[in-house]
């Protein structure tokens, strides 16, 4: 059913269609509207056989979800940023216990300095938590991905984080096509937990495992992650067949045939980039967009196939790794091992700075003009702002325009000497 609604409400409706048994809420922007809507649905009775808990922290939100999931019902919660970090211990725990919890991360920057706006530093900080991490490029994609996430989580036996850009998607009011309850029920059968606490068959979950079996346990956990790749593909296929929605998947290519440069992007920037690429095409510039949906597990083979023989690839990232470089870069490099593809990282859109069509076009042109001299380049940098500080503090001035990391390194000459 078509509706013109806020993204958050769309997610809430989608989650409700999945018949969860427990929903936990702790308010942190920008995910609040999702749980607000779910709370209302439980209260009005729209969502039956489900309890909604207002908890005192994200740590408890995750913990209650762990308990509910271990108790044998579908558990859902949502978080972002500081909240995600506050529940980190529980996040790792849920994965280790193999509990198929689904959680929305309305991606947002991490403080200090406190910043409520979108980037990907929160979600990506959980890279090694053992959760599946699925990114969404639009609200329709996010809505559909949530429904698929329950099925994937339950089949794989691991929790799934659905990552959607905070505010940009969560607060956007858009046309959304909600599948019917019948369609969802057909797609997602009633929950049958793999294991749960039941007085009829008592088990002890969460044992202490020492060196004698820890490695093996981790190998099996990794195997589950790897198994998730074909499962995501299959589940996506099933879902698309039932709904006709072209959502989910491991990745999605746009305008990639014969592209001279391919951008790898996660999240809502993909839509902006598609428009930009279309505009470039009108100018005779051939750029493609690879929308990366599955960050964990990482689809190495699919990325390699998607890039193909294209010589230039730019990863557009809304985060990076301090003291290192882009977070996706090593993964893409691994995927392309043995090929002479030029892989660059463009970092932009941190802490809510808008990524505009012009940003994307600039990156494409920068690449095709051969201006990428380093692995990582910062785009949309306001050199006035940075220089106003650096000039006084260290007598250094940075140039205007895209900032390659080598420029930053050059400013350290004095320190080296």
């Amino acid at each position, binding site marked *: 059913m078509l509706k013109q609604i806020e993204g958050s409400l769309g997610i809430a409706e989608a989650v409700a269609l999945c018949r969860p048994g427990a929903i936990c809420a702790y308010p942190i922007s920008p995910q609040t509207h999702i749980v607000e809507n779910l709370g209302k649905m439980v209260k009005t009775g729209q969502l039956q056989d489900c309890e909604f808990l207002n*908890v005192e922290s994200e*740590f*408890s939100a995750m913990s*209650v979800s762990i308990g509910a999931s*271990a108790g044998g019902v579908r558990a859902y919660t949502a978080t972002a940023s500081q909240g995600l970090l506050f529940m980190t211990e529980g996040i790792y725990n849920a994965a280790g216990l193999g509990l198929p919890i689904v959680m929305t991360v309305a991606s947002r920057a991490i403080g200090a300095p406190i910043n409520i706006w979108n980037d990907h530093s929160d979600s990506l900080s959980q890279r090694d938590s053992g959760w599946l991490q699925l990114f969404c490029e639009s609200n329709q994609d996010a809505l559909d991905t949530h429904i698929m996430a329950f099925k994937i989580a339950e089949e794989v036996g691991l929790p799934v984080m659905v990552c959607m850009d905070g505010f940009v998607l969560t607060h956007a009011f858009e046309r959304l096509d909600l599948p019917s309850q019948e369609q969802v029920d057909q797609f997602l059968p009633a929950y049958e937990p793999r294991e749960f*606490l039941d007085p009829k068959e008592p088990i002890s*979950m*969460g*044992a202490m*495992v020492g060196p004698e079996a820890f490695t093996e346990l981790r190998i099996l956990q990794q195997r589950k992650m790897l198994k998730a790749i074909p499962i995501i593909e299959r589940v996506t296929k099933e879902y698309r067949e039932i709904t006709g929605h072209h959502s989910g998947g491991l990745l999605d290519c746009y305008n990639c045939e014969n592209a001279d440069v391919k951008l790898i992007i996660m999240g809502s920037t993909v839509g902006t980039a598609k428009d930009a690429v279309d505009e470039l095409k009108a100018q005779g510039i051939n750029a493609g967009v690879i929308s990366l949906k599955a960050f964990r597990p990482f689809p190495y083979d699919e990325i390699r196939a998607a890039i193909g023989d294209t010589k230039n690839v730019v990863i557009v990232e809304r985060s990076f790794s301090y003291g290192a470089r882009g977070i996706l870069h090593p993964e893409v490099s691994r995927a392309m091992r043995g090929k002479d593809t030029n892989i660059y990282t463009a970092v932009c859109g941190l802490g809510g700075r808008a990524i505009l069509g012009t940003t994307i076009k600039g990156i494409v042109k920068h690449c095709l003009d051969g201006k990428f001299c380093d692995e990582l380049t910062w785009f949309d940098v306001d050199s006035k702002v940075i220089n106003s500080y650096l000039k006084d503090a260290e007598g250094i001035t940075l140039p205007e325009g895209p900032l390659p990391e080598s420029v930053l390194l050059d400013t350290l000459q004095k320190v080296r000497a």
Partner: protein
Amino acid sequence: MLDAIKFYQTGSNTVGNRLLNPSMRAVQASSDRPNTLISGHRACQGCGEALGARYAIDAAMRATGGQLMIANATGCLEVFSTPYPESAWRLPWIHSLFGNAAAVGAGLAVAARVRAKKAGNANVPRVIAQGGDGGTTDIGFGPLSGMFERNDDVLYICYDNQAYMNTGVQRSSATPPAARTATTQLVGAEPGNDWGKGKNVPLIAMAHGIPYVATASVADLKDLEYKVEKAMSFHGARYIQILVPCPLGWGCASGSTVTVARLAMESGFYPIFEAEYGKITSVRKIRQKQPVLNFLKLQRRYAHLTGKKADPKVLARIQAMCDDNIKSFDLLGDEIPETVPVAVQALERSHQI
């Protein structure tokens, strides 16, 4: 005639008593008790927590007809009961994290209700969350308070051994003053744990207005079992804090576990009481009053208070704390305190000023 004699040699002071009607004997006296925490666990010799856990959970099993699940905080109890590949538990049990047992318990309770409702089953399994004092009064305190405030249908049991024993005996907010721990050593001008610190979680729990709060001790099994069963008769958030001596951490003989716990009760060091909806409803009276010295001298964590070099002023201060407890909980009288007693920590702090 036999029933007319309300005198039974040891009464209910012992675990069982052949002279008592079987229904009046402790769950622990029954030869078919649940033994929810079974042999083969790796607790230290004389572990009070292992004892307290079996006492409490067995009683809860009886009260719920076996419809029971446990969420366990990280700590000794978890480590010694479930090291791969062996579990000592005989009921559904989960360990998640150190600080989240109350919240995991809340989640379990939700799941149990929802599943039962969906299945049209009126018999909803009940939930106990449990942990040590560190997991309860410190790191798990936020989730605990949240569980209380939401009145989640969870009984939280804190096995209080007054320090972080699992990590090697470090101080917690339940460590009493002057006690030695690895982080409050017997050195300096004021050896042992600082005075004027620590929190009284049972009274804090009462301030949440939850249906049931109680303290108990492994040295009074009947009282402990009664309280667990009573707690299970309520729905909503409940809290029981059980004093479980740790021979390792307290530095007492492994065989003295129950005796030390008894002296803590009988000296007024650890008041045993229960409260409903924030109001005290009963107080376990001291049977044979003991000077606190008798309690302290069995434990090396108080070695500095009992030897030749002992500072009588510090001993007097601990005795004063016990006397405060005796007074404010009326541990020797016939009354039940009308108002909520002031935490002994507060009395101690105010004495200082």
